[in-house]
């Protein structure tokens, strides 16, 4: 079965080569030959599906002669995690990348059977070039089917940190985003090659752009949730290079999502949009490179290898070719550039783009600075969380401010009176809100500014809903609920977008609250002793050691009271996995709440739990980050839901 998988990858390589070279050999000019190239894409999808099934089969049947299976599974590993071992290591996750790309390419072929026929040969060529790159990695340095010269009795098992439900969904979701951005990139390059530089390629890929952006965003949030629940240090974001690698394309992708609106509505910013999608694609590849090469020290150290050079070559070649094409077509990309007023939605979107891309650059610069420093000064330094927090806080404030003002300024021309009318209430109310926060005793100025800006944006969005609902009520005689529902249903893209903005506010509120007001205490407790943190009293009541399928767990029992009333029992765990008994893993216990999370870590114990070391944290408002993720999902669904034809 594993031989079959390897041969499938080899044959897929041949088909991808054919699909890549087809347009350059003049095949595209004949419809029949284009169909042939499209069939090659179908074949690649089928072959890589078989290869993926072969790897899954090897994992599930515990074929330990396959090196990848031996390195990432063991007989004790539950089936759930055995399947997720597919993307737990480098070789498997690269196969996942390649398979997803083949699936997306196949869907693109189906979607464009009867449209975009001029673009399609080159779209297929670009997609196949990317597929070829991953197949080269899979066939040569990173073959998931390579065999050991012997059959081990058992595998090494999975890294305990990866044995968490979050790991089932986080990597594939992130990869859906990374791979998804290849589609608009392929259409953009195809438009550059063919000279069809209008809005056609944007309209054809709008769904893909939103899908990829959403998946990347949700993948980031799932990763943050995994870190919060598994890494056991009480936080969800450590500005780790691998985390940063996923944030960068999301930021540029967000900028792209906004700036294409200007191209769609005004025909402007064509060059900028090309640059943005190229940069976003390159950052997606860069993200995979950072994750897989281990070139920068990371907490994701389970993913190191020497395939970095392949990525560097691919990034340089694709970047150079893409920007060469942009330069070659710059005449065709020029557009009527005129505005009636400095105060317009176009100008506010441009500044929004500047902040988003500036933010991405700040993250990029901080991430690679250790390498730059080593190259220039010969001294390797560390760029840790405090640096990013300091740099990104003002950038975040600016972004919030612009999120508030952008949607309410008219296209092309806005008057100052219109501007004042729209912003008087939000501005005064947010200043009052800021004052109330200070009077209420919040003397963390950055947090007060952040909350006030969130309030400002929220009021602007609320007013937008109010004005729209009122307009429907007065002109169409609808009731308030009907008017509100119809307002959302009749222009899903606009109001779905507003809901996504509200989701971002929730995330900002959660980040601000947990960053500014988190309280932590580390204590040694004997059984029966208590500790007070914030308004909670926590009593260490019991301790036990249990055997589970693939691990031993040491579990403490803590009785939690709040204002003399028992509100629950917390059971933090120290887990000793059979394959890594010397590296116990903390399984934290979190009591989640809208106001705050109570977070308990069993850091250690002595004398079978007679005394135990605990770390407790009170993290305010964290739940709003995850609620924001749910709201982002709802907003995206509303935004992409097809409008009913009128």
């Amino acid at each position, binding site marked *: 079965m594993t031989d079959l998988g390897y041969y499938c990858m080899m044959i897929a390589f041949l088909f991808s080569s054919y699909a890549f070279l087809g347009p350059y050999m003049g095949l595209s000019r004949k419809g029949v030959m284009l169909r042939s190239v499209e069939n090659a894409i179908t074949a690649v999808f089928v072959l890589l599906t078989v290869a993926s099934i072969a790897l899954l089969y090897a994992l599930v049947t515990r074929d330990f002669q396959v090196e990848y299976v031996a390195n990432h599974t063991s007989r004790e590993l539950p089936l759930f995690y055995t399947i997720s071992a597919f993307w737990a290591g480098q070789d498997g996750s690269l196969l996942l990348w390649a398979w997803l790309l083949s699936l997306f390419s196949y869907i693109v072929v189906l979607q464009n059977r009867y449209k975009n026929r001029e673009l399609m040969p080159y779209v297929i060529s670009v997609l196949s070039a990317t597929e070829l790159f991953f197949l080269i990695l899979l066939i040569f340095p990173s073959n998931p089917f390579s065999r050991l010269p012997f059959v081990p009795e058992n595998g090494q098992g999975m890294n305990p940190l990866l044995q968490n439900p979050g790991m089932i969904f986080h990597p594939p979701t992130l990869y859906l985003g990374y791979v998804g951005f290849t589609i608009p990139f392929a259409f953009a390059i195809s438009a550059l090659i063919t000279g069809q530089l209008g*809005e056609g390629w944007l*309209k054809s890929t709008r769904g893909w752009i939103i899908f990829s952006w959403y998946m990347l965003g949700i993948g980031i949030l799932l990763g943050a949730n995994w870190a919060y629940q598994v*890494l056991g240090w009480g936080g969800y974001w450590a500005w*780790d290079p691998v985390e940063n690698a996923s944030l960068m394309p999301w930021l540029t992708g967000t900028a792209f999502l906004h700036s294409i609106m200007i191209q*769609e*509505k005004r*025909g402007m910013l064509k060059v900028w949009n090309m640059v943005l999608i190229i940069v976003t694609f390159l950052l997606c590849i860069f993200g995979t490179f950072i994750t897989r090469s281990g070139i920068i*020290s990371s*907490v994701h*150290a389970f993913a190191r290898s020497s395939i970095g050079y392949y990525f560097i070559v691919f990034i340089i070649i694709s970047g150079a070719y893409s920007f060469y094409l942009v330069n070659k077509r710059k005449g065709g990309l020029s557009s*009527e550039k*005129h*505005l*009636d007023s*400095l105060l317009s939605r176009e*100008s506010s979107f*441009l*500044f929004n783009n*500047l*902040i988003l891309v*500036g933010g991405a*650059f*700040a993250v990029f*610069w*901080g991430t690679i*600075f250790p390498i730059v*420093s080593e190259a220039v000064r010969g001294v*390797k*330094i*560390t*760029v*840790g969380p*405090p*640096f990013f927090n300091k*740099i990104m806080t003002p950038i975040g404030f600016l972004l919030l401010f612009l999120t508030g003002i952008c949607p309410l300024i*008219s296209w*092309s*021309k806005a008057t100052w009176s219109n501007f004042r009318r729209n912003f*008087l209430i939000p501005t*005064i109310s947010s200043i*009052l809100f800021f*004052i109330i926060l*200070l009077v209420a005793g919040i*003397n963390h*100025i950055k947090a007060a500014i952040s909350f006030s800006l969130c309030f400002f944006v929220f009021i602007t969005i609320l007013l937008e809903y109010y*004005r*729209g609902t009122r*307009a*429907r009520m*007065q*002109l169409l005689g609808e009731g308030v609920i009907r008017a509100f529902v119809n*307002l959302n249903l009749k*222009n899903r*893209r606009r109001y779905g977008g507003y809901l996504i903005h509200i989701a971002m506010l929730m995330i900002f509120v959660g980040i601000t609250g947990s960053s500014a007001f988190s309280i*932590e205490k580390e204590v040694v407790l004997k059984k029966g002793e208590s500790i007070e943190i914030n308004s909670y009293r926590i009593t260490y009541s019991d301790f036990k050691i249990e055997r589970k399928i693939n691990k031993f767990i040491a579990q403490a029992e803590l009785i939690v009271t709040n204002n003399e009333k028992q509100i629950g029992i917390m059971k933090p765990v120290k887990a000793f996995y059979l394959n890594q008994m010397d590296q*116990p893993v903390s399984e934290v216990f979190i009591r989640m709440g809208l106001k705050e999370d109570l977070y308990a870590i069993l*850091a*250690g114990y002595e004398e079978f739990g007679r005394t135990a070391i605990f770390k407790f944290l009170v993290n305010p408002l964290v739940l709003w980050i995850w609620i924001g993720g749910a709201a982002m999902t709802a907003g995206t669904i509303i935004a992409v839901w097809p*409008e009913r034809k*009128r």
Partner: protein
Amino acid sequence: MRYCWKYAIALALMLLVYSFNPAVYALTVEEVSEYLMCQCGCNLTVKNCNHTGCPSATPMRAEIKRLIELGKGRDEIIAVFVSRYGETVRAVPTKSGFNITAWALPFLSIIGGGIIISILLKAWVAGGKDKEKAPISQDESEYDRQIEEDLKKID
């Protein structure tokens, strides 16, 4: 109403000044340990390293506590660790020499981009005065336009 803004801003500034508490500020272990990297290879800060009995983070925290009790400030404590482990122990680059580019470049790039955008916008507005207004794309939803028109009527 015209002066509301000014009064609100003045009031906010007064409260801002009032809210700053000049009381003596006690340094905590967490406030120092978040600026130092754990040396056990976990790639987390000393504050965040969660290894049970970590051979690096645990003694470093104890040392930080001891130095705070001796009355040392954050920068002095960090300097003690830098002399022991080298530059890599810092979680944040210094704001001197070449490292200043780490801090300055992101903001300089945003300021530079802002200047370029401002110049472009002025040029586009100047161009717009000589030309007819570009039509808004037909792609804009009919309903979107209708709502805008309706809102104008009401306002």
